[in-house]
């Protein structure tokens, strides 16, 4: 009953209007971003299906006209999946900005005078591509029109040269695509007929979510518990609470549980919000990539065939590891929170935890920790949170011993941290010791003024 009373108070302190507003805003932002990404990608995909090629022929030779004719014929070819609208324009001079503005277009390919002459002289002819840049955003500058035109012109030149050298269509096709590549990926003793790139992009998309959730969890639980303890010290409510007929274990237990519950709530909201964003941003791309690649089996089927999909036991193990990660954060936060007696120091004291979370987070996103030089590997593996970030890849690729080793290491670190945390919380030091970075402790200042011992 008393513990429930304490827990309710801690939850009421943590779950306030500001925190709920923050969560709602986070979800809204991610959903809006996802929506924007989806719309932008859809626009690009639509644009790529209805390409407009703006071309200006200044050379006006028989050959350049044949290129334009070939371009128009591509549209009429029922076997071709390319649908491009050819817009032939007339322009002069090299004021390209004015040309684009006058013709109300954003891209243009110019075949300059002397193009055919250069080809006849067996020289590389110049081709001019003009495209308007409207922003630094990647998506807004994708220009399929010019790329398509340039490829078609290159194809025309190649086929003309091939015809000149007496090559027939079949030989020309062979020269263009000399091999049919069948990609196979092997994991341990299993293999699947799929490229490594397809597998990697799928795994990356799947694994993108967990490290972010882990990072949010680590930061949130630590900050909440540290603030909860240090605020009680700063406001002098801790002394009142500890002199009440409740055990110190109940006081700290309620704080830990409340911080963990609120952090999990935050993590769940972030997970939903982020997955909405990711699905908005990647669904269309994945579909397009799969269609373009023309793969015979789906990536999910390939993952199953290669034994890379996670089973129920794997998810339980990941859950256990997440639990110990949170427990390590909570126990370290008790120690740090108990040493703070100034609100400004919460952020400074959060720094070591943030670094311990950020280093493995970034490394696990960029590189395989096992491929690092020995000394770095030891340092990175010594950080207990590393094992949480590597849990999914380890389980996926059957590195069970590495996973279990990490889990055991985390349990040992937790036991050591909680031992010192509880010892500190149960001792006089909770009220007599303070650690203030870069400034003299309020206790020390006051005690010096009053000529009393530091500990008092």
């Amino acid at each position, binding site marked *: 009953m008393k513990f429930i009373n304490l827990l309710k108070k801690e939850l009421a302190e943590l779950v306030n209007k500001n925190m709920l507003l923050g969560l709602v805003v986070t979800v809204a932002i991610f959903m809006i971003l996802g929506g924007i990404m989806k719309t932008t990608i859809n626009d690009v995909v639509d644009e790529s299906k209805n390409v407009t090629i703006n071309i200006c022929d200044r050379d006006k030779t028989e050959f350049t006209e044949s290129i334009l004719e070939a371009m128009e014929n591509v549209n009429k070819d029922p076997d071709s999946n390319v649908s491009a609208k050819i817009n032939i324009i007339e322009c002069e001079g090299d004021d390209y900005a004015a040309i684009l503005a006058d013709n109300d277009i954003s891209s243009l390919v110019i075949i300059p005078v002397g193009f055919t002459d250069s080809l006849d002289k067996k020289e590389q002819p110049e081709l001019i591509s003009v495209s308007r840049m409207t922003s630094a955003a990647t998506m807004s500058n994708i220009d399929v029109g010019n790329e398509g035109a340039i490829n078609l012109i290159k194809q025309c030149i190649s086929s003309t040269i091939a015809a000149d050298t007496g090559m027939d269509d079949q030989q020309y096709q062979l020269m263009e695509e000399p091999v049919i590549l069948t990609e196979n990926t092997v994991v341990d003793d299993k293999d699947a007929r799929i490229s490594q790139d397809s597998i990697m992009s799928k795994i990356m998309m799947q694994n993108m979510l967990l490290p972010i959730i882990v990072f949010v969890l680590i930061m949130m639980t630590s900050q909440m518990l540290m603030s909860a303890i240090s605020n009680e010290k700063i406001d002098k409510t801790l002394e009142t609470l500890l002199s009440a007929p409740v055990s110190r274990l109940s006081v700290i237990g309620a704080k830990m549980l409340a911080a963990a519950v609120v952090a999990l709530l935050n993590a769940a909201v972030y997970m939903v919000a982020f997955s909405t964003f990711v699905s908005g941003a990647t669904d269309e791309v994945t579909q397009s990539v799969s269609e373009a690649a023309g793969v015979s089996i789906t990536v999910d089927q390939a993952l199953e065939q290669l034994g890379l999909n996670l089973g129920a036991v794997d998810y339980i193990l990941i859950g256990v590891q997440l639990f110990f990660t949170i427990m390590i954060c909570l126990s370290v936060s008790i120690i740090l929170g108990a040493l703070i007696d100034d609100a400004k120091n919460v952020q400074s004291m959060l720094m070591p935890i943030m670094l311990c979370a950020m280093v493995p987070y970034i490394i696990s996103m960029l590189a395989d920790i096992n491929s690092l030089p020995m000394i770095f590997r030891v340092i990175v593996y010594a950080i207990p949170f590393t094992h949480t970030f590597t849990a999914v890849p380890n389980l996926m690729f059957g590195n069970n011993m590495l996973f279990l080793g990490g889990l055991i290491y985390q349990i040992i670190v937790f036991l050591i941290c909680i031992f010192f945390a509880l010892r500190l919380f149960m001792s006089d030091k909770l009220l007599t010791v303070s650690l203030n970075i870069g400034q003299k402790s309020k206790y020390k200042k006051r005690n010096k003024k009053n*000529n009393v011992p530091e500990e008092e």
Partner: protein
Amino acid sequence: MENVLEVKGLTKQYTKVLAADKVSFEIGKGEVFALIGPNGAGKTTTIRMISTLLTPTAGDASVMGHSIVSEPDKVRECITYLPDEAGAYKNMKGIKYLQFMAGLFCTDLEEIGKCVDRAKEICQLGERLNDKIGSYSRGMIRKLLLARSVMTRPKLAILDEPTSGLDVINAIEIRKTIKRLAHEEGMSFLLSSHNMLEIEFVSDRVGIITKGHLMVTGAADELKQRYNAANLEEVFERVVKQNEVH
């Protein structure tokens, strides 16, 4: 008189400093005992040890027969502690704070309700109890905390500087409340204060502590007579100076 608190040779040694040295005194039922002394004399250390917040290096104290060393849980059931400059949870409404604190002492909802009603009566904050504590003045917070300290009718209420930072009117009200609760309801008080006038008015007996030693204890009048002093302030001055000479 039946003793509510018995302090025997209570000692606290920090790494370098002896903060309390064999402090001994007792408080009877319904008695108001005040610890006075200069800054850093060991008042707060002694009070924190009796409140079970600090562990004594030597000696012991018992509240209603329960040792602070071996039965701290039982001791905490008999006492309430109001620290100097104590705050309350700023985001909590006054009434919720009282309910929360009462819930730590009682498990029965009816009992909790009674405690809160009593606190409401003592603090006289009326409708302001429905506001967040963050909006309270210092005097209002102190009244709320004092009401919290006595609402559960503890055997011993330990109040460190109960009127510090309060205006005269608020301070007088709090002193009257302490005196009334002691004499009418038999509640015992252990106070610490710098304000000699307050001590003389409110306390039945006084203990003067300096450099960790409890130099003298007795009723204010008795001490004035013993030290041939006009008021408690003079007694305090003489005792402190005497200690400096020794």
